[in-house]
Protein backbone atom coordinates (compact mmCIF):
# COMPACT_ATOMS: atom_id res chain seq x y z
CA UNK A 1 0.00 0.00 0.00
CA UNK A 2 1.18 3.49 -0.81
CA UNK A 3 2.06 5.90 1.96
CA UNK A 4 -0.35 8.73 2.66
CA UNK A 5 0.95 12.23 2.03
CA UNK A 6 -0.20 15.79 2.56
CA UNK A 7 -0.99 18.50 0.02
CA UNK A 8 2.38 20.21 0.30
CA UNK A 9 4.29 16.95 -0.13
CA UNK A 10 2.28 16.19 -3.24
CA UNK A 11 2.85 19.59 -4.85
CA UNK A 12 6.56 19.51 -4.14
CA UNK A 13 6.92 15.95 -5.48
CA UNK A 14 5.08 16.73 -8.72
CA UNK A 15 6.89 20.03 -9.21
CA UNK A 16 10.29 18.42 -8.79
CA UNK A 17 9.72 16.39 -11.98
CA UNK A 18 9.81 19.42 -14.27
CA UNK A 19 13.41 20.57 -13.79
CA UNK A 20 15.82 19.27 -16.43
CA UNK A 21 19.23 17.98 -15.50
CA UNK A 22 22.20 20.31 -16.01
CA UNK A 23 20.04 23.40 -15.95
CA UNK A 24 20.06 26.48 -13.69
CA UNK A 25 17.18 27.44 -11.42
CA UNK A 26 16.66 30.38 -9.07
CA UNK A 27 14.31 29.39 -6.26
CA UNK A 28 12.17 31.22 -3.75
CA UNK A 29 11.73 30.32 -0.07
CA UNK A 30 9.78 27.24 0.96
CA UNK A 31 8.12 24.89 -1.52
CA UNK A 32 10.10 25.98 -4.62
CA UNK A 33 13.36 25.41 -2.77
CA UNK A 34 12.20 22.01 -1.52
CA UNK A 35 11.14 20.95 -5.04
CA UNK A 36 14.51 21.93 -6.49
CA UNK A 37 16.34 20.04 -3.73
CA UNK A 38 14.19 16.96 -4.36
CA UNK A 39 14.82 17.22 -8.10
CA UNK A 40 18.55 17.40 -7.46
CA UNK A 41 18.50 14.12 -5.53
CA UNK A 42 16.13 12.17 -7.81
CA UNK A 43 16.22 13.50 -11.34
CA UNK A 44 18.70 16.29 -11.92
CA UNK A 45 22.03 15.74 -10.15
CA UNK A 46 23.55 18.40 -12.40
CA UNK A 47 21.01 21.05 -11.41
CA UNK A 48 22.57 24.32 -10.25
CA UNK A 49 20.39 25.96 -7.61
CA UNK A 50 20.74 29.71 -7.14
CA UNK A 51 19.30 32.02 -4.50
CA UNK A 52 18.66 35.69 -5.19
CA UNK A 53 20.71 36.91 -2.21
CA UNK A 54 23.85 35.42 -3.79
CA UNK A 55 24.10 31.71 -2.92
CA UNK A 56 25.08 29.46 -5.84
CA UNK A 57 25.24 25.66 -6.00
CA UNK A 58 25.13 24.75 -2.31
CA UNK A 59 25.08 21.23 -0.93
CA UNK A 60 22.11 22.04 1.25
CA UNK A 61 22.40 20.45 4.69
CA UNK A 62 18.79 21.32 5.56
CA UNK A 63 16.01 23.59 4.30
CA UNK A 64 17.06 27.23 4.43
CA UNK A 65 14.61 29.38 6.41
CA UNK A 66 15.54 32.40 4.31
CA UNK A 67 16.75 32.67 0.70
CA UNK A 68 19.63 34.65 2.20
CA UNK A 69 20.66 32.41 5.09
CA UNK A 70 24.02 30.69 5.23
CA UNK A 71 22.63 27.32 4.15
CA UNK A 72 22.02 28.78 0.69
CA UNK A 73 25.78 28.73 0.12
CA UNK A 74 26.82 25.92 2.46
CA UNK A 75 29.61 24.06 0.63
CA UNK A 76 28.46 26.06 -2.39
CA UNK A 77 30.20 26.86 -5.64
CA UNK A 78 30.03 30.60 -5.08
CA UNK A 79 28.84 33.11 -2.52
CA UNK A 80 28.20 36.25 -4.56
CA UNK A 81 25.68 39.08 -4.57
CA UNK A 82 22.14 39.94 -5.49
CA UNK A 83 23.15 42.01 -8.54
CA UNK A 84 25.27 39.05 -9.75
CA UNK A 85 22.25 36.70 -9.63
CA UNK A 86 19.74 39.06 -11.27
CA UNK A 87 22.28 40.12 -13.90
CA UNK A 88 22.82 36.43 -14.78
CA UNK A 89 19.04 36.21 -15.26
CA UNK A 90 18.99 39.37 -17.37
CA UNK A 91 21.87 38.01 -19.47
CA UNK A 92 19.76 34.97 -20.35
CA UNK A 93 21.76 32.31 -18.57
CA UNK A 94 19.12 31.10 -16.11
CA UNK A 95 16.67 28.43 -17.31
CA UNK A 96 14.07 28.44 -14.57
CA UNK A 97 12.48 30.75 -12.05
CA UNK A 98 10.63 28.84 -9.37
CA UNK A 99 8.16 30.92 -7.32
CA UNK A 100 4.95 30.81 -5.23
CA UNK A 101 2.19 33.41 -5.06
CA UNK A 102 -0.97 34.60 -3.34
CA UNK A 103 -3.25 35.15 -6.36
CA UNK A 104 -2.79 33.96 -9.93
CA UNK A 105 -4.90 34.69 -13.03
CA UNK A 106 -5.55 32.78 -16.26
CA UNK A 107 -2.42 34.23 -17.90
CA UNK A 108 -0.18 33.23 -15.03
CA UNK A 109 0.13 36.78 -13.64
CA UNK A 110 0.83 36.67 -9.92
CA UNK A 111 -0.11 39.03 -7.10
CA UNK A 112 1.99 39.14 -3.95
CA UNK A 113 1.54 42.87 -3.19
CA UNK A 114 -1.91 43.52 -1.73
CA UNK A 115 -5.49 42.24 -1.50
CA UNK A 116 -8.28 44.78 -1.98
CA UNK A 117 -9.26 47.45 -4.48
CA UNK A 118 -7.60 50.52 -2.91
CA UNK A 119 -3.82 50.44 -3.10
CA UNK A 120 -3.48 53.14 -0.43
CA UNK A 121 -5.72 51.31 2.04
CA UNK A 122 -5.30 47.61 1.27
CA UNK A 123 -7.44 44.95 2.99
CA UNK A 124 -4.29 42.91 3.34
CA UNK A 125 -0.79 44.18 2.70
CA UNK A 126 1.43 41.39 1.38
CA UNK A 127 5.23 41.45 1.15
CA UNK A 128 5.52 42.76 -2.42
CA UNK A 129 7.55 41.48 -5.33
CA UNK A 130 10.76 40.61 -3.57
CA UNK A 131 12.66 39.08 -6.48
CA UNK A 132 9.65 37.31 -8.01
CA UNK A 133 8.92 39.97 -10.64
CA UNK A 134 12.58 40.06 -11.65
CA UNK A 135 12.91 36.29 -11.92
CA UNK A 136 9.66 35.83 -13.88
CA UNK A 137 10.61 38.74 -16.16
CA UNK A 138 14.07 37.44 -16.97
CA UNK A 139 14.37 33.64 -16.60
CA UNK A 140 13.42 31.55 -19.63
CA UNK A 141 10.74 29.47 -17.96
CA UNK A 142 8.80 30.17 -14.78
CA UNK A 143 7.40 27.43 -12.57
CA UNK A 144 4.73 28.42 -10.08
CA UNK A 145 3.70 26.25 -7.17
CA UNK A 146 0.50 27.10 -5.30
CA UNK A 147 -2.59 25.45 -3.81
CA UNK A 148 -5.67 25.77 -6.03
CA UNK A 149 -8.94 27.35 -4.90
CA UNK A 150 -11.21 30.15 -6.11
CA UNK A 151 -9.64 32.64 -3.71
CA UNK A 152 -6.22 32.12 -5.28
CA UNK A 153 -7.15 31.29 -8.89
CA UNK A 154 -8.88 34.53 -9.80
CA UNK A 155 -8.39 37.98 -11.28
CA UNK A 156 -5.37 39.53 -9.57
CA UNK A 157 -5.97 42.62 -7.42
CA UNK A 158 -2.47 43.78 -8.25
CA UNK A 159 -0.20 42.49 -11.01
CA UNK A 160 3.09 42.03 -9.16
CA UNK A 161 4.81 39.44 -11.30
CA UNK A 162 4.22 39.08 -15.04
CA UNK A 163 2.81 35.93 -16.53
CA UNK A 164 1.66 36.42 -20.10
CA UNK A 165 0.03 39.74 -19.04
CA UNK A 166 -3.07 40.06 -21.31
CA UNK A 167 -2.19 37.19 -23.65
CA UNK A 168 0.03 36.21 -26.56
CA UNK A 169 2.58 38.89 -27.47
CA UNK A 170 1.78 41.12 -24.49
CA UNK A 171 5.07 40.50 -22.69
CA UNK A 172 7.05 41.51 -25.77
CA UNK A 173 4.74 44.48 -26.31
CA UNK A 174 5.44 45.65 -22.75
CA UNK A 175 9.16 45.46 -23.44
CA UNK A 176 9.99 42.26 -21.56
CA UNK A 177 12.69 40.01 -23.08
CA UNK A 178 11.09 37.82 -25.76
CA UNK A 179 10.72 34.07 -25.56
CA UNK A 180 10.10 33.58 -21.87
CA UNK A 181 7.15 33.33 -19.50
CA UNK A 182 5.25 30.87 -17.30
CA UNK A 183 5.92 27.22 -18.08
CA UNK A 184 3.97 25.14 -15.56
CA UNK A 185 1.69 25.84 -12.64
CA UNK A 186 1.73 23.00 -10.14
CA UNK A 187 -1.18 22.84 -7.69
CA UNK A 188 -2.65 20.32 -5.26
CA UNK A 189 -5.21 19.35 -7.94
CA UNK A 190 -3.45 19.39 -11.29
CA UNK A 191 -0.62 20.52 -13.52
CA UNK A 192 -1.34 23.42 -15.85
CA UNK A 193 0.52 24.68 -18.89
CA UNK A 194 -0.30 27.54 -21.27
CA UNK A 195 -1.76 27.17 -24.74
CA UNK A 196 0.23 28.49 -27.68
CA UNK A 197 -2.33 30.81 -29.25
CA UNK A 198 -3.86 32.65 -26.31
CA UNK A 199 -1.32 31.93 -23.57
CA UNK A 200 -4.16 30.96 -21.25
CA UNK A 201 -3.91 28.30 -18.59
CA UNK A 202 -4.55 24.78 -19.83
CA UNK A 203 -4.94 21.69 -17.67
CA UNK A 204 -2.41 19.09 -18.76
CA UNK A 205 -2.84 16.46 -16.07
CA UNK A 206 -5.01 15.95 -13.02
CA UNK A 207 -3.78 14.29 -9.85
CA UNK A 208 -4.92 10.91 -8.59
CA UNK A 209 -8.47 11.04 -7.23
CA UNK A 210 -9.22 14.48 -8.73
CA UNK A 211 -11.98 15.08 -11.31
CA UNK A 212 -12.50 17.80 -13.93
CA UNK A 213 -15.40 19.11 -11.86
CA UNK A 214 -13.23 19.48 -8.78
CA UNK A 215 -10.65 21.44 -10.78
CA UNK A 216 -13.32 23.71 -12.30
CA UNK A 217 -15.01 24.29 -8.95
CA UNK A 218 -11.73 25.48 -7.50
CA UNK A 219 -10.89 27.90 -10.31
CA UNK A 220 -12.25 31.44 -10.60
CA UNK A 221 -11.86 31.66 -14.39
CA UNK A 222 -12.52 29.41 -17.40
CA UNK A 223 -9.80 26.86 -18.03
CA UNK A 224 -8.63 25.26 -21.24
CA UNK A 225 -8.23 21.48 -21.21
CA UNK A 226 -5.61 19.49 -23.02
CA UNK A 227 -7.06 17.10 -25.62
CA UNK A 228 -4.73 14.45 -24.25
CA UNK A 229 -5.59 15.10 -20.61
CA UNK A 230 -3.43 12.80 -18.53
CA UNK A 231 -3.46 11.50 -15.00
CA UNK A 232 -0.49 12.86 -13.03
CA UNK A 233 1.76 9.90 -12.23
CA UNK A 234 1.25 8.80 -8.63
CA UNK A 235 3.50 10.12 -5.90
CA UNK A 236 6.23 7.53 -5.50
CA UNK A 237 7.33 6.23 -2.12
CA UNK A 238 10.86 7.19 -3.11
CA UNK A 239 9.84 10.83 -3.61
CA UNK A 240 8.23 10.97 -0.18
CA UNK A 241 11.14 9.23 1.48
CA UNK A 242 13.75 11.60 0.05
CA UNK A 243 11.55 14.62 0.75
CA UNK A 244 11.00 13.63 4.38
CA UNK A 245 14.40 12.25 5.23
CA UNK A 246 16.83 14.32 3.18
CA UNK A 247 15.19 17.47 1.91
CA UNK A 248 13.08 18.65 4.84
CA UNK A 249 13.71 16.38 7.84
CA UNK A 250 12.52 19.05 10.28
CA UNK A 251 9.24 19.65 8.43
CA UNK A 252 9.97 23.33 7.83
CA UNK A 253 7.93 23.26 4.62
CA UNK A 254 6.13 19.93 4.41
CA UNK A 255 5.07 20.05 8.05
CA UNK A 256 2.98 23.15 7.57
CA UNK A 257 0.37 21.91 5.13
Amino acid sequence: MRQPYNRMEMMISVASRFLEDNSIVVVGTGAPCAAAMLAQVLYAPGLTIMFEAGGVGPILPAMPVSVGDSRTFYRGLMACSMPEIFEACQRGIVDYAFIGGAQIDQYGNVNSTMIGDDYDRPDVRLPGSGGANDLASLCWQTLIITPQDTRRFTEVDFLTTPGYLSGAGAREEAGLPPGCGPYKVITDLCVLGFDDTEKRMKVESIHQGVTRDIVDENTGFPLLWDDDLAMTPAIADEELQVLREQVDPYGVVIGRS
Partner: protein
Amino acid sequence: MDRSRHSPRDGHLANAPDVDEARDFFRQKQSAQMKSKVTTVKDAVSEYIDDGNYIAVGGFGTNRIPTAVLHEIVRQRKTRLGLAGHTSTHDFQILASGSCVDRCDIAYVVGLEARGLSRIAREAFESGDIEATEWTNAALAWRYKAAAMGVSFLPIRTMLGSDTVHHSTVEEISCPFTGITYLAVPALFPDVGIIHVHRSDIYGNCQVDGIMISDYDLARASRQLIITTEQIVSNEIIRRRPDQTIIPHYVVDAVIEVPYGSYPGNMPYLYYSDEDHLRKWLDAERDPDTFAHFLDTHIYSAADHWDYLDTVGGTKLLDELRKLEHPESWGVN
Protein backbone atom coordinates in the same frame (compact mmCIF):
# COMPACT_ATOMS: atom_id res chain seq x y z
CA MET B 1 -1.39 45.33 -22.22
CA ASP B 2 -2.57 48.95 -22.45
CA ARG B 3 0.58 51.01 -22.83
CA SER B 4 -1.00 54.06 -21.24
CA ARG B 5 -0.70 52.11 -18.01
CA HIS B 6 2.98 52.96 -18.19
CA SER B 7 2.63 56.74 -18.14
CA PRO B 8 1.40 58.57 -15.05
CA ARG B 9 2.77 57.24 -11.83
CA ASP B 10 1.82 57.90 -8.27
CA GLY B 11 4.99 56.66 -6.62
CA HIS B 12 7.08 59.10 -4.64
CA LEU B 13 10.74 59.74 -5.34
CA ALA B 14 12.28 60.03 -1.90
CA ASN B 15 15.63 61.42 -2.95
CA ALA B 16 16.29 63.03 -6.32
CA PRO B 17 19.16 61.31 -8.13
CA ASP B 18 21.31 64.44 -8.30
CA VAL B 19 24.73 63.02 -9.11
CA ASP B 20 26.52 66.37 -9.27
CA GLU B 21 25.23 67.33 -5.84
CA ALA B 22 26.35 63.88 -4.63
CA ARG B 23 29.83 64.43 -6.10
CA ASP B 24 30.13 67.72 -4.24
CA PHE B 25 28.87 66.12 -1.05
CA PHE B 26 31.27 63.18 -1.22
CA ARG B 27 34.16 65.54 -1.98
CA GLN B 28 33.33 67.73 1.03
CA LYS B 29 33.25 64.80 3.41
CA GLN B 30 37.03 64.36 3.06
CA SER B 31 36.88 61.02 4.80
CA ALA B 32 39.96 59.59 3.08
CA GLN B 33 42.04 60.47 6.13
CA MET B 34 43.07 57.33 8.01
CA LYS B 35 41.60 58.24 11.37
CA SER B 36 39.78 56.15 13.90
CA LYS B 37 36.04 56.14 13.43
CA VAL B 38 35.36 53.93 16.43
CA THR B 39 32.37 55.08 18.41
CA THR B 40 29.36 53.68 20.27
CA VAL B 41 26.01 52.62 18.88
CA LYS B 42 24.33 55.31 20.95
CA ASP B 43 26.56 58.09 19.67
CA ALA B 44 26.46 56.92 16.06
CA VAL B 45 22.66 56.92 16.02
CA SER B 46 22.37 60.33 17.66
CA GLU B 47 25.10 61.85 15.50
CA TYR B 48 24.28 60.43 12.08
CA ILE B 49 20.55 59.67 12.04
CA ASP B 50 18.17 62.64 12.17
CA ASP B 51 14.38 62.46 12.23
CA GLY B 52 13.19 62.52 8.63
CA ASN B 53 16.34 60.93 7.19
CA TYR B 54 16.19 58.23 4.54
CA ILE B 55 17.99 55.08 5.70
CA ALA B 56 19.01 51.78 4.12
CA VAL B 57 19.89 48.59 5.96
CA GLY B 58 22.43 46.06 4.73
CA GLY B 59 22.15 42.29 4.77
CA PHE B 60 18.96 40.42 3.98
CA GLY B 61 16.20 40.82 6.56
CA THR B 62 17.30 38.17 9.03
CA ASN B 63 20.81 37.69 7.72
CA ARG B 64 23.83 39.83 8.62
CA ILE B 65 21.67 42.69 9.89
CA PRO B 66 22.83 45.57 12.15
CA THR B 67 20.39 44.79 14.97
CA ALA B 68 22.09 46.94 17.61
CA VAL B 69 21.70 50.10 15.53
CA LEU B 70 18.08 49.27 14.67
CA HIS B 71 17.21 48.81 18.36
CA GLU B 72 18.97 52.06 19.21
CA ILE B 73 16.95 53.91 16.54
CA VAL B 74 13.81 52.64 18.31
CA ARG B 75 15.21 53.51 21.77
CA GLN B 76 16.05 57.05 20.68
CA ARG B 77 12.52 57.26 19.22
CA LYS B 78 13.60 58.46 15.81
CA THR B 79 10.62 59.36 13.64
CA ARG B 80 9.58 60.07 10.06
CA LEU B 81 12.37 57.95 8.63
CA GLY B 82 12.32 56.89 5.00
CA LEU B 83 13.42 53.30 4.37
CA ALA B 84 14.68 51.27 1.44
CA GLY B 85 12.62 48.10 1.86
CA HIS B 86 15.07 45.81 0.10
CA THR B 87 14.13 42.44 1.62
CA SER B 88 13.36 44.21 4.84
CA THR B 89 11.98 41.51 7.12
CA HIS B 90 13.04 41.53 10.77
CA ASP B 91 14.81 44.86 10.26
CA PHE B 92 11.55 46.44 9.10
CA GLN B 93 9.68 44.68 11.91
CA ILE B 94 11.95 46.36 14.48
CA LEU B 95 11.54 49.82 12.94
CA ALA B 96 7.75 49.35 12.56
CA SER B 97 7.57 48.33 16.22
CA GLY B 98 8.94 51.75 17.14
CA SER B 99 6.78 53.58 14.54
CA CYS B 100 10.00 55.06 13.17
CA VAL B 101 9.16 54.91 9.44
CA ASP B 102 6.70 57.06 7.50
CA ARG B 103 7.70 56.26 3.90
CA CYS B 104 9.09 53.16 2.29
CA ASP B 105 10.43 52.05 -1.07
CA ILE B 106 9.07 48.51 -1.05
CA ALA B 107 10.61 45.52 -2.68
CA TYR B 108 9.83 43.11 0.16
CA VAL B 109 8.43 44.06 3.55
CA VAL B 110 5.83 42.78 6.04
CA GLY B 111 6.72 39.10 5.62
CA LEU B 112 9.48 37.15 7.29
CA GLU B 113 9.79 34.71 4.39
CA ALA B 114 8.82 31.16 5.43
CA ARG B 115 8.05 32.33 8.98
CA GLY B 116 4.88 34.22 8.06
CA LEU B 117 3.63 37.82 8.12
CA SER B 118 4.30 40.42 10.81
CA ARG B 119 1.05 41.87 12.08
CA ILE B 120 2.65 45.10 13.27
CA ALA B 121 4.33 45.60 9.89
CA ARG B 122 1.12 44.84 7.98
CA GLU B 123 -0.89 47.30 10.05
CA ALA B 124 1.63 50.07 9.42
CA PHE B 125 0.76 49.85 5.71
CA GLU B 126 -2.92 48.91 5.96
CA SER B 127 -3.60 51.96 8.16
CA GLY B 128 -1.96 54.26 5.65
CA ASP B 129 0.64 55.35 8.23
CA ILE B 130 3.47 54.58 5.83
CA GLU B 131 3.55 56.02 2.35
CA ALA B 132 4.47 53.17 0.01
CA THR B 133 6.28 53.14 -3.32
CA GLU B 134 6.70 49.84 -5.15
CA TRP B 135 9.88 48.28 -6.56
CA THR B 136 11.45 44.86 -6.88
CA ASN B 137 14.58 43.49 -5.25
CA ALA B 138 16.58 43.79 -8.47
CA ALA B 139 15.30 47.32 -9.07
CA LEU B 140 16.41 48.51 -5.62
CA ALA B 141 19.73 46.67 -5.96
CA TRP B 142 20.31 48.39 -9.29
CA ARG B 143 19.25 51.76 -7.85
CA TYR B 144 22.05 51.37 -5.30
CA LYS B 145 24.35 50.32 -8.12
CA ALA B 146 23.53 53.42 -10.19
CA ALA B 147 24.38 55.61 -7.19
CA ALA B 148 27.56 53.62 -6.56
CA MET B 149 28.50 54.15 -10.22
CA GLY B 150 27.82 57.88 -9.91
CA VAL B 151 25.16 57.85 -12.65
CA SER B 152 21.62 59.13 -12.19
CA PHE B 153 19.79 56.05 -13.52
CA LEU B 154 20.22 52.55 -14.92
CA PRO B 155 18.14 50.84 -17.63
CA ILE B 156 16.55 47.59 -16.47
CA ARG B 157 14.40 44.87 -18.08
CA THR B 158 12.17 43.99 -15.12
CA MET B 159 8.98 45.55 -13.69
CA LEU B 160 7.77 46.11 -17.28
CA GLY B 161 4.07 45.35 -17.77
CA SER B 162 3.35 45.04 -14.04
CA ASP B 163 1.17 47.16 -11.75
CA THR B 164 4.32 47.78 -9.71
CA VAL B 165 5.19 50.36 -12.37
CA HIS B 166 2.12 52.51 -11.52
CA HIS B 167 3.18 52.86 -7.91
CA SER B 168 6.82 53.52 -8.60
CA THR B 169 9.03 56.28 -10.00
CA VAL B 170 10.35 54.77 -13.20
CA GLU B 171 10.36 56.02 -16.75
CA GLU B 172 10.14 53.98 -19.93
CA ILE B 173 13.03 54.69 -22.30
CA SER B 174 14.36 53.36 -25.60
CA CYS B 175 17.90 52.20 -26.18
CA PRO B 176 19.61 54.74 -28.50
CA PHE B 177 21.45 51.88 -30.23
CA THR B 178 18.84 49.13 -30.61
CA GLY B 179 15.51 50.79 -29.85
CA ILE B 180 14.52 48.18 -27.28
CA THR B 181 12.48 49.23 -24.28
CA TYR B 182 13.89 49.66 -20.79
CA LEU B 183 12.67 51.08 -17.55
CA ALA B 184 15.00 53.74 -16.19
CA VAL B 185 15.34 53.44 -12.41
CA PRO B 186 16.73 56.45 -10.52
CA ALA B 187 19.93 56.24 -8.49
CA LEU B 188 19.26 55.89 -4.78
CA PHE B 189 21.59 57.75 -2.39
CA PRO B 190 20.39 56.96 1.16
CA ASP B 191 21.14 59.62 3.78
CA VAL B 192 22.46 56.87 6.03
CA GLY B 193 23.44 53.28 5.29
CA ILE B 194 23.85 50.78 8.13
CA ILE B 195 25.78 47.54 7.51
CA HIS B 196 26.97 44.72 9.78
CA VAL B 197 30.25 43.01 8.78
CA HIS B 198 32.54 40.27 10.05
CA ARG B 199 35.59 42.45 10.65
CA SER B 200 36.73 46.01 10.25
CA ASP B 201 39.79 47.97 11.31
CA ILE B 202 39.37 51.20 13.29
CA TYR B 203 39.39 53.17 10.04
CA GLY B 204 36.46 51.28 8.51
CA ASN B 205 38.14 48.94 6.06
CA CYS B 206 35.66 46.06 6.14
CA GLN B 207 35.67 42.39 5.20
CA VAL B 208 32.63 40.15 4.87
CA ASP B 209 32.50 36.34 4.69
CA GLY B 210 29.77 34.77 2.58
CA ILE B 211 27.22 36.44 0.30
CA MET B 212 27.35 40.21 -0.18
CA ILE B 213 23.66 40.65 -1.04
CA SER B 214 23.59 44.31 -2.18
CA ASP B 215 26.02 45.74 0.34
CA TYR B 216 28.88 46.42 -2.05
CA ASP B 217 26.78 49.05 -3.81
CA LEU B 218 24.81 50.16 -0.76
CA ALA B 219 28.03 51.06 1.06
CA ARG B 220 29.15 53.25 -1.84
CA ALA B 221 25.71 54.79 -2.44
CA SER B 222 25.20 55.93 1.17
CA ARG B 223 25.94 59.55 2.05
CA GLN B 224 26.83 58.49 5.60
CA LEU B 225 27.72 54.92 6.50
CA ILE B 226 27.54 53.29 9.92
CA ILE B 227 29.36 49.96 10.27
CA THR B 228 28.84 47.49 13.08
CA THR B 229 31.35 44.65 13.13
CA GLU B 230 31.66 41.33 14.91
CA GLN B 231 35.26 42.23 15.59
CA ILE B 232 37.58 45.22 15.24
CA VAL B 233 40.86 43.89 13.88
CA SER B 234 44.22 45.53 13.36
CA ASN B 235 44.97 47.31 10.13
CA GLU B 236 47.65 44.64 9.56
CA ILE B 237 44.99 41.88 9.42
CA ILE B 238 43.18 43.81 6.69
CA ARG B 239 46.42 44.38 4.79
CA ARG B 240 47.21 40.64 4.74
CA ARG B 241 44.11 39.98 2.60
CA PRO B 242 43.14 43.22 0.82
CA ASP B 243 41.30 41.11 -1.77
CA GLN B 244 38.71 40.40 0.92
CA THR B 245 38.02 44.06 1.67
CA ILE B 246 34.64 44.97 0.23
CA ILE B 247 34.11 48.34 1.92
CA PRO B 248 37.04 50.80 2.04
CA HIS B 249 37.54 53.23 4.91
CA TYR B 250 36.89 56.29 2.75
CA VAL B 251 33.16 55.53 2.50
CA VAL B 252 32.76 54.79 6.22
CA ASP B 253 31.77 57.29 8.92
CA ALA B 254 31.39 55.21 12.08
CA VAL B 255 32.70 51.84 13.26
CA ILE B 256 31.30 50.01 16.29
CA GLU B 257 32.35 46.58 17.54
CA VAL B 258 29.18 44.57 18.26
CA PRO B 259 29.81 40.84 18.76
CA TYR B 260 26.72 38.78 17.84
CA GLY B 261 25.55 42.00 16.22
CA SER B 262 23.27 40.27 13.71
CA TYR B 263 21.34 38.39 16.43
CA PRO B 264 18.52 37.25 16.13
CA GLY B 265 19.61 37.08 12.53
CA ASN B 266 22.08 34.69 10.99
CA MET B 267 25.79 35.59 10.65
CA PRO B 268 27.49 33.35 8.08
CA TYR B 269 30.10 30.97 9.51
CA LEU B 270 29.49 32.29 13.06
CA TYR B 271 25.93 31.74 14.26
CA TYR B 272 22.51 30.79 12.88
CA SER B 273 19.28 32.76 13.28
CA ASP B 274 17.31 32.32 16.51
CA GLU B 275 14.07 30.97 15.09
CA ASP B 276 12.47 30.62 18.54
CA HIS B 277 12.95 34.29 19.32
CA LEU B 278 11.71 35.37 15.89
CA ARG B 279 8.62 33.19 16.43
CA LYS B 280 8.05 34.73 19.87
CA TRP B 281 8.27 38.20 18.34
CA LEU B 282 5.63 37.35 15.70
CA ASP B 283 3.39 35.78 18.37
CA ALA B 284 3.76 38.71 20.78
CA GLU B 285 2.53 41.12 18.08
CA ARG B 286 -0.96 39.56 18.28
CA ASP B 287 -1.79 41.33 21.54
CA PRO B 288 -0.95 45.02 22.12
CA ASP B 289 -0.27 44.66 25.87
CA THR B 290 1.86 41.57 25.42
CA PHE B 291 3.77 43.30 22.67
CA ALA B 292 4.34 46.49 24.66
CA HIS B 293 5.80 44.35 27.44
CA PHE B 294 7.88 42.39 24.91
CA LEU B 295 9.36 45.59 23.46
CA ASP B 296 10.01 46.99 26.91
CA THR B 297 11.90 43.86 27.95
CA HIS B 298 13.98 43.47 24.82
CA ILE B 299 14.49 47.03 23.58
CA TYR B 300 13.45 49.94 25.81
CA SER B 301 14.76 48.50 29.09
CA ALA B 302 17.91 47.09 27.51
CA ALA B 303 20.88 49.44 27.63
CA ASP B 304 22.65 47.89 24.67
CA HIS B 305 23.04 44.75 22.56
CA TRP B 306 24.71 42.75 25.37
CA ASP B 307 21.72 43.55 27.58
CA TYR B 308 19.37 42.39 24.84
CA LEU B 309 21.32 39.13 24.50
CA ASP B 310 20.98 38.61 28.26
CA THR B 311 17.21 38.97 28.02
CA VAL B 312 17.00 36.14 25.50
CA GLY B 313 19.30 33.53 26.97
CA GLY B 314 22.85 34.84 27.09
CA THR B 315 25.88 32.69 26.36
CA LYS B 316 24.09 29.35 26.55
CA LEU B 317 21.80 30.37 23.70
CA LEU B 318 24.68 31.80 21.69
CA ASP B 319 26.55 28.50 21.99
CA GLU B 320 23.54 26.70 20.54
CA LEU B 321 23.28 29.14 17.64
CA ARG B 322 26.99 28.73 16.91
CA LYS B 323 26.52 24.98 16.72
CA LEU B 324 23.47 25.31 14.45
CA GLU B 325 25.58 27.32 12.03
CA HIS B 326 27.97 24.38 11.52
CA PRO B 327 26.07 21.44 9.99
CA GLU B 328 29.26 19.39 9.88
CA SER B 329 29.12 19.26 13.68
CA TRP B 330 25.46 18.23 13.93
CA GLY B 331 26.21 14.52 14.10
CA VAL B 332 28.84 15.08 16.80
CA ASN B 333 28.09 16.20 20.31
